[in-house]
């Protein structure tokens, strides 16, 4: 008897599995539509905000000293106000792109939009 490892139907099923897997990898590699902002306070994640899902204006006030007020709207997030001296974080304005980062050193608060296109940004 001639032994065949695969029949035609088996090969079709395997090809289908490979194709579905390929699509899965491609979709995950090129998923560029998400826009997630991470807010951390003193190195700990405070909240992740899906900026595409924000409706209207969302005010976030982490428990920090000095106080900062963060405002998230659809597609953007910013330090609205800060009780620190230099207000560099407020001057940064709206973060709208992947890789954007705004830091309030005195309060230890960081907003960053996660980015898979770069490993780091030099400044």
């Amino acid at each position, binding site marked *: 008897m001639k032994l065949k490892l695969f029949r035609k139907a088996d090969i079709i099923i395997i090809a289908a599995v490979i194709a579905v897997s390929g699509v899965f990898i491609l979709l995950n590699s090129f998923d560029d539509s998400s826009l997630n902002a991470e807010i951390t306070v003193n190195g700990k994640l405070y909240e992740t905000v899906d900026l595409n899902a924000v409706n209207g204006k969302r005010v976030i006030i982490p428990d920090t000293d000095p106080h900062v007020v963060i405002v998230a709207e659809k597609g953007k997030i910013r330090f609205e106000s800060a009780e620190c001296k230099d207000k560099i974080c407020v001057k940064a304005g709206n973060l709208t792109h992947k890789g954007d980062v705004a830091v309030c050193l005195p309060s230890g608060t960081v907003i960053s939009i996660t980015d898979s296109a770069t490993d780091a940004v*030099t400044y």
Partner: protein
Amino acid sequence: MKDKPVRKLYILPFVCLIICAVVFGVYAGNRFGEDSIEFFAMDTYCTAKTNGAKAEKVNNSIKELVKKLDADVLSRQNESSLVYSLNENRGGPITEIKDYLEVMNKVCRDSGGAFDYTLGKVSDLWDFGGNPQVPGDDALETVLSSCGADKVIISYGSVSFPEGLSLDFGACGKGIGLDEIRDNILDEGGIKSSVVSLGGSILLYGNRDFTVGIRNPESITGYVATLNLPACCVSTSGNYERYFEENGKRYHHILDPKTGYPVDNGLVSVTVVSDSGILSDILSTACFVLGLDKGMSLASKYGCTAVFIDDNKCITASKALEGKVKINADSYTLRFQ
């Protein structure tokens, strides 16, 4: 005839399982053993993203090393730091930083004084980190006359310098931190790759190519260009990082050692790529002060590459970076020199 259905039953799921395992491995392989950390040290925001079995432990060690290096060695403000002690006593033993200080002195000489780590008192007058103000010409002149790396004498593991001079590692501390992290933590093994950022000075570690964005000088956020680089260190000096405005004029923190005033030569940022953290850090400052042509020559002399961005939105990169720089903002032009 009977063995056919048995073979079909066992071989097909087995093959499918292998395919799924391979796909899962490809998709998730880089995500397992990945750890990120962020912290504040050296008066700036620091991050480390490490990939490998010991990623979390390595990241914690990085954080500890940077905080300790800042507090015990480099800080001008911390009374228990080496630099504080040196400034108080006009010198002393410098075992921990001797090699770094020699590199700094060499760059001071080679740059004709464009990089100078003795401007502590000048920085105090400007007070960029506190209540920034434009100092008076007389005060600036008096303080400047006491500064100068040529007044620092290194001999037998000790340093000495005259009164009125104050060492300031602000333009090289992050680079030193990157070198210390690579030599004392990452080279010990247990990781595949790591990307460390100390206030925008970057250490790329691992056997792969990395993509580094250069901050958009106009918007503070985003990046104007990307660099495709192997393992190395990348530092940027930009006039948008620390500044204040007085009477409608902007004053930034990169000071010309010759005048004591912020450099005003049309550049907005200089990025230097080097195998050495301290070189990338101090050369970015030196090149910014020197300007495009002299700066590019200096970077080249040290075997480094550089990217200069000017206020006409022109990006000039070293020829060796051709094919590795990609513009990310339409309004900018790119050329190589």
